[in-house]
Structures are given as C-alpha cells and as structure tokens.
C-alpha cells in the first residue's frame, strides 16, 4: 500500500455505543480521473494514532473496487473532523 492522503467524501455511522465513527461508503477520484464509489466491505482493524500530535483513527478496510478485492486505510482526523483515503 502507498500513502495517498487524499481527502474524500464519506458517509459514516456514529453509533450510540461506539467509540469511533464507522465508515460506510465513500467517493474518491482515482489516478485516471474516474470517480469511484466504494462501499466498505469489511473493517479489519481500527487503531487510534497520534502521529505528529494529531489524534486520528486509522481503519484498515477491504472492498471490491473495479472488480478487485483491495485493502486500504481510511483515516479520520478527530480534531479537524476530516476523512482521508490514507493508503491504498
């Protein structure tokens, strides 16, 4: 996986009992300029990180993108309330 750190539009679920938001589906523009709409297949792990002092949740996820099962990392920056497609 390569770091992309690309801001994304996302739909996430904030559950009453959950510790962190759960990403549901997101949109991003790939290298060819095509817009991909990805529904998150499964969340494999969630880590809370504090790299360079920024509190984030990093989600290792897996989905079918353009017919291929791929793993990628979504990142939620808690202070800025922003989502990124962090690695793919």
């Amino acid at each position, binding site marked *: 996986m390569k*770091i*992309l*750190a690309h801001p994304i539009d996302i739909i996430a679920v904030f559950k009453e009992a959950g510790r962190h938001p759960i990403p549901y589906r997101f949109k991003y523009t790939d290298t060819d300029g095509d817009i991909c709409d990805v529904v998150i297949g499964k969340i494999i792990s969630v880590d809370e990180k*504090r*790299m*360079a*002092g920024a509190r984030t949740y990093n989600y290792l996820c897996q989905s079918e993108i353009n017919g291929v099962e791929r793993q990628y990392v979504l990142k939620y920056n808690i202070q800025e309330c922003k989502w990124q497609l962090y690695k793919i």
Partner: protein
Amino acid sequence: MIIMHIDANSAYLSWTAADMLENGYDIDIRNIPSAIAGDPDNRHGIILTKSTPAKRYGIKTGESLLEARRKCPDLKVFPPDYDLYMRCSNAMYDILCRYSPAIQRYSVDECFLDYTRSTLKFGDPVKAAYEIKEAVKEELGFTVNIGVSTNKLLAKMASELKKPDMVHTIFPCEIEKKMWPLDISELFMVGRATAGKLKAVNINTIGDLANADRALIKALLKSHGELVWEYANGMDGSPVVLNEAIVQKGVGNSITVPYDVLDMKEAREVLLALSERVGMRLRAIRCISSLVSLHLRTSELWGYGHQVQLQRYTDSTSDIYDIACGLLEECWKGESLRQIGVSVSHLSGNADRQLTIFDREGLEKEERLNKTVDAIRREFGERVIERAVFANTETDPIQGGVNDGNYLMMGGYKNEDLGASH
C-alpha cells in the same frame, strides 16, 4: 531525587518532518539538508532549526536565510507551523504524564520530569527513560534525548551530550568523566559573553571552572559567577515546578515589521496593534499592571527602550497605548524602525484596585467595553471586531505573538482554557 530532562531533537524540524511523512511526503527532511525558517518577504527569514545534514554545511540557528543558502544552495526550506508544534509538544507532554505528575514544561520542546516517586511504580529510571524515548518515537514519530540525574542541571547537561535519540546519565559520580572535559560554553547559563571572560583567564573546560577558586570566579563574574561555578560542580537545588505554580511577572509582545517604520503615524498604528494584544493577554490572566515599557530596534539592529512606572494600575488597551505613545515620543530619535515591542510588568491581581482622584473619566465604561470586546473575540475570532483606525488599511489590527494569540508557548494560557473558565 531522580530528575529526567526530555528534549525533542531539532524540534521544529522533526515535528514538521513527522507531519509531512504522515501526510504522504516521500522524503524524510531530517535526512537531507533542510531548515525551518520564517518568511523572508516579511523579514522573518532567519533559520529557526536545521537538520543534521544542514549542520554539516555550517548552517547555524539564527543566521539569515540568505547566508544559509550561500553555504548550501540545495537547502530545502520549510515555513514554521506553530499549531503543529503546540500539538506535538502537548502530545509529548501527555506521554510524560503517564510516568509522573510532576512535570515542568521548560519550553515548547523541553520538559523536566520528577521521577523520584515514580521509581516505586515504574522501577529503574534509565529503563523508564528508554521506554519514554521509544514511546515518543513509536507513537508520535519524532525522537527525543533524555538526560537522567539527581537534579535539573545535571539532567539537562546529560540530555545535551550526544544527539539524537539517546538516553544519557550524569550522576554525581560521573560528573568528572562526562561533564568536566566539555568546553566551557557547553555549560548551562554560560553564554558567549561569560565564556569569553572565562577563557580570558584560561578557564576553557567545565572542569577548569569547577576546580577554580569560587571566590575568584565571584570576583570575576559577580553573583552569576557563583551560579556557574555551582553548576560546573553539578550543584543545583531548584525543584521541578509545575507550570501552574509559576507566577507570571510580565506580558509583552513585539513585532518585526515587514518594512521600516519611518513616521510617527505608522509607529502609532503598530503600537496600537501591539497594545491590543498585550491588553488582551493581561486581562486574560486577570492582572493589572503599573509599569509599561517600550522597546525599539532600528534597521541597523541597534536596540533601545524606555519605560515608565505609573502611579496607578491599568489593564486598558487604550491606556497602555497612550502611555506607549508617550514613551515613543520621549525616546524615539527618528531612526527607521525594524522592530517595536510593548510590555507591561509589576502585575497585580485585578480583583481589587485602588482608585485615585486622578483617574481618567469613563474608566469603568472603558473597562466594560474591553471586557465585551474580549468576549466577542473569544467567541467569534480575534479579528471580527477591530478599531476604526484599522478599517480599510493593510495594517493588522492585532499584532505580536508567534501563534496568532492562541499561544501557550510557555507558562501562558490557551484562549480556550480561558473561555471555559470565564
């Protein structure tokens, strides 16, 4: 007593590097000739920190960007990001809090930690220091040096020994071996001037100073001599003071203007913008002051100042501004000015104040106005309300401070904290 001194290695640069790596930048700027420097267009173009490879080119902290580029044309320069630095500093502090409640934030990138009572829970201090070092590296992405010893001075000297990413000790039995061979200028509180005076009497290493006659050093350097002599012998009784316990003695702000100030009108504008900041900060710590000082630096880098002791106390922006203007008129000889600073001291709590028959009229009204303006700025942002003088001008209505006011560079207050406590 067991004290640790934790020091982030080339702080600004490694924090920027960690942040850039985290955001997908493919080069670690710590491994190439790079530096953090202000904006040369605003005349803030001095090197704030440099990487180890840049150091090899002879680039020094504090020199101008132009000089640095001459030494190393490939130097990569990045602007400072004070929000990031505060965030990294806070994150480092949070990690330290796991090991002891007694932490003194000595500066944005340095902390003293009193480990004395933590030994019962966390065991050997050196082992704990390694744990802290690794935790910071692993979790935050930058490296620190940690010095371990029996007092603050020795801990600080230890953390300066060899960098980066190391743990050192200088326990009293190791002073002779580890500290005494160092050059005298390496000793804490020995600056260029003191080092020069000591070298003139053939005191070249810390060991030379430690073994010199205390009375002789006192005769040479007065009370400061006694202090450095004690430091050279590893003596320091100062405790780790929590930042909340430090009493603030003054508030001051200065600004290096982007272009030289030549006339009184311009100078007054800058003074007003600085007085706004100083007044806001003074009221935020709920103090009033009875001493106002003005500092000027000319374009030839020659500085001088003037101050006045008031017969009353004030925390009003307009009052501070009026007094600063008076000082400016008295002392400014009309040279072109590069830097202007306003500061206030002799503080007292604002809960009670002695009124005098010479008080200006409308003082209470002005107090209420200041309070309201402060509240509006806290709620909606600093620049939502400004003095009419600044309307339709290029001048920033509030000036001074590295982090746009929201700074607790050291021992200060965060605006949010104050908002919550009001």
